[in-house]
């Protein structure tokens, strides 16, 4: 008897995807595709709601779960941690869907159904990844996520950029997952098991061997690619720029989150052994610093806002890694909280980008001039979300950074915190360039930008959440702590 509730959200997603594909068969090419959007939306929503049921706090009082669900004799375990990750990912998916509706108004494609389906598939991959307790499962989930996102990235067949993005993402992704697998294979060779907890056990018994280190580094390389940690970050700007904007948004949040989930499972559980731990902790210190520095520096000269966001996301990965260094509940809490904050800030920005580029057809920063006149709301969103990313009070990014660096410093990484803080000043420079265009410069053409009520709602929500979490982080912090406690 399989415990379905362990992968209930994934089920919802997959079923929704299949349903979409099936329904699509019955539609004439001319008929409207809104129903598909609804299916996708509801499916994701259902998955999201199922999380609260699984966490044992169902509003309807169903007793589906009590926080931890295990299936496939332990290969798939849905605990508090993975629930939190799933929540972030699903929220990201929801917002991505919203963007998609807007996006396809102008960039129309003959295959909306496929797009939605693939999006849901890759979302399901991401969510599954967060609860994988075993390497094969982890790998499969990962590939489900990435392979579908290759497709998503290159979905606009007529668009050069999209194609190029798809190709680069694919080749490099395949390459890095090859490295990852190679590393896994040696891990298997060293331990004879693929269950992460078992690996930890058997590694703890043996001394550090060059082979183990080799495997470790291969794994770091393969996974760091997914969260675009320097120097494995180089695909990020190109793909972010080329891919359709909703996909960029999805990648920047969902797949990053999944990547971090994988990291935490593998390293904090599997490789957290005396022999190896110092190696990878030090390694991550370097990588984090490198991504913070490179990401922020290279973002400065950018003209295209999506590319800018690409670089910024590299830097953000670096920040999150500083928390990842501090093994322990505090670090984990910080990471989770920051991911949540990052979700809304980033999504807000990308939604704004989609809306604006729908109107102006441009993604150049200087075309954001005079948003304060054309659409004050978007100006507001850019101000709040970007500055939250820069970590300026009173926005959530600030408290997020405070906890991250706090965690890092608590483990003695003062230098890393100093680097991070100094370069968040640099980041402020390029974020403010956008804000400057949006709020200070006068518009070239001051035709107002129309926003649908739903989008208004979401934008406002992003702003409100980002501001409130700056002042009143408690609710989310409690959630994150609960999640973290499931690991320690």
């Amino acid at each position, binding site marked *: 008897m399989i415990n379905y509730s362990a992968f209930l959200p994934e089920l919802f997603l997959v079923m929704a995807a299949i349903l979409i594909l099936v329904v699509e068969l019955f539609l004439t090419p001319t008929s409207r595709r809104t129903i598909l959007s609804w299916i996708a939306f509801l499916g994701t929503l259902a998955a999201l709601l199922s999380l609260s049921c699984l966490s044992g706090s169902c509003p309807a009082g169903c007793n589906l779960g009590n926080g931890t669900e295990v299936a496939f004799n332990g290969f798939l375990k849905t605990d508090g941690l993975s629930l939190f990750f799933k929540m972030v990912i699903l929220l990201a998916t929801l917002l991505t869907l919203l963007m998609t509706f807007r996006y396809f108004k102008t960039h129309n494609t003959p295959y909306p159904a496929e797009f939605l389906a693939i999006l849901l598939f890759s979302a399901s991959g991401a969510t599954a990844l967060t609860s994988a307790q075993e390497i094969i499962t982890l790998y499969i989930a990962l590939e489900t996520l990435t392979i579908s996102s290759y497709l998503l990235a290159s979905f606009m067949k007529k668009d050069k950029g999209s194609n190029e993005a798809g190709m680069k993402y694919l080749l490099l992704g395949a390459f890095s997952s090859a490295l990852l697998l190679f590393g896994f294979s040696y891990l298997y060779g060293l331990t004879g098991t693929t269950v992460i907890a078992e690996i930890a056990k058997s590694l703890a018994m043996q001394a550090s061997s060059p082979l183990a280190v080799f495997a470790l580094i291969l794994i770091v390389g393969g996974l760091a690619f997914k969260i675009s940690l320097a120097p494995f970050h180089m695909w990020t700007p190109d793909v972010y720029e080329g891919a359709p904007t909703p996909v960029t948004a999805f990648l920047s949040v969902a797949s990053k989150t999944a990547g971090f989930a994988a990291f935490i499972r593998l390293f904090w559980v599997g490789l957290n052994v005396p022999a190896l731990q110092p190696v990878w902790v030090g390694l991550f210190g370097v990588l984090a610093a490198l991504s913070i520095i490179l990401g922020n520096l290279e973002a400065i000269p950018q003209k295209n806002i999506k590319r800018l966001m690409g670089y910024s996301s590299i830097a953000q990965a670096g920040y999150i890694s500083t928390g990842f260094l501090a093994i322990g509940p505090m670090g984990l809490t910080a990471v989770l909280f920051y991911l949540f904050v990052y979700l809304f800030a980033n999504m807000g920005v990308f939604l704004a980008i989609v809306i604006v580029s729908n109107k102006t057809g441009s993604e150049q920063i200087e075309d954001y001039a005079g948003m304060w006149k054309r659409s004050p709301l978007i100006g507001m969103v850019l101000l709040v979300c970007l500055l939250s990313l820069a970590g*300026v009070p009173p926005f959530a990014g600030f408290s997020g950074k405070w906890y991250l*660096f706090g965690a890092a410093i*608590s483990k003695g990484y*003062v230098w890393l915190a100093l680097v991070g803080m100094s370069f968040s000043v640099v980041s402020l420079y390029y974020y403010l360039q956008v804000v*400057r265009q949006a709020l*200070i410069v006068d518009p070239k053409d001051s035709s107002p930008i129309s926003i649908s009520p739903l989008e208004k709602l979401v934008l406002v929500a992003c702003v409100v959440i980002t501001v409130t979490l700056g002042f009143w*982080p408690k609710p989310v912090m409690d959630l994150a702590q609960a999640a973290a406690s499931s690991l320690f």
Partner: protein
Amino acid sequence: MLPVLATILAGFAVTFNFFHAASVGPNALPLLTSFIVIPILSAFMILAAPVQWTRWISLFMASMELGIGFKVFFIFQTAVGGFQFVEEVPWLKNFGINYILGVDGMSALMVLLVACVYFAGSLISWNITLRMKEYFILFSLLVGGVAGAYESLDLFFFFLFYEFAVLPMYLLVGIWGTGRKEYAAMKLTLMLLAGSAFMLVGFIAMYFTSGVHTFDIRILGDLAKTGFNTDFQKFWFPLLFLGFGVISAVFPFHTWSPDGYGSAPTAASMLHAGVLKSLGGYSIIRVALPAMPDGAKFWLPLLVTLSLINMLYAAIVALKQKDFKYVIAYSSVSHCGAILFGICTLQVAGLNGAIIQTFSHGIVAAMTFALVGTVYGKAHTRELIKLGGLAAVMPILGGLFVAAAMANVGLPGLSGFVGEFLIFLGAYKSGYHGGFTIFQTLFPIAILAIVMTAIYYLRLVQMVFYGPLKDPHYKDEVRDGTFIEILPIAFLLVVSLVVGLYPKPFVDMSNATIAPLIEHIRGFK
């Protein structure tokens, strides 16, 4: 005129009387919280209300703020001392963050200062027309941030409010500024935040090193003996001093200040120069000194030199400025140097002087910037060569400017004198009692600064107001200040006069903070 006065009185009366009954005693009304909330609330009200109400809302709220400011000042029990009206709300237990507000003598003065400048500022901005709503919203938010920074006793919230105040400044300068406004805005923001980067790391380091895992300033202050060993203090004090120093434009990190103030809109430069800038010295006294006295003493030679350079160097540079407002900006830098100098004396008199000077500089700088802004609004230029003889067409403003200049020069009877005098006393004393003898040689140099100040301010008066009327058009075009323009300036002048004529209550208040602090510090090497 009448409606304005009515609004002011109404607003003032509301808070001043409302808090009367309840604000003393253990479970008081949240006096301090409301002091932060009012400006932020006014921002939201302005956002919601139709545009023609904007100025009135802002004025009303500012008057309410003024009421609270005076309330705090009056009902603060100097004899009792310590932190009063404390409000404590647990925020994030496991991160040791609590929402703690409270004022001791020093911050009570600062609260009054904030209130006064906010009030004057919202009057000075009366004639803003461009994007009026946004202007007043940002302005109020700025005040909210500053107010919070002066009241919080928790490093997290201190930092949060401080940077919260920096942000609106960027837009205020960028949108409503003059000259190279965007450059200035970016420079100001980046330099201030760069400084604060060190602060943040330092705070967190204190948090973990202290061992008790708290951001409560009161507790951290007492940990100097047990919590922080000398090496820690030696390492972190300079970084904190740097972070705080950038706020109060310590050499060589002062250049944001002339450009920033040079191009900021009047009210913004008033608030920034008058209130936000003073945060630097304030936080050194509040955070750095109590927690790291050894570090302070170790680095004293360097810090003293820096502050002296600030005083003299800025004064000298001010001598050559061609822009009316730049002179004022540099003079404000120079005065902040005096404040730092007073802090570096580590003497009762000197530190009291620093606080009084902080207060006085706040009031006086605000007054001076208000004057410059008003004159600029009438003469449409700030180039000193083009101005001249304006006293003929604007006698009242001219007279007020002379008064402001004298206050800056440190003329007895105005607030400037008290602070400077105490600072020099402290400087001498810390030399005399065999403590830090470098002062005995340095304080004559410090006093030299008052001569320099006199020179450049009188030069300013002469170039702008005295002599024959440079531009004949002014004769019939330029009028003297209107009631609305005069009111805030006169108000600030009166405050400065009161401090100058009867400093006792103010000094008592600051001493309520300083005397224990000195006792605390004296126990160290």
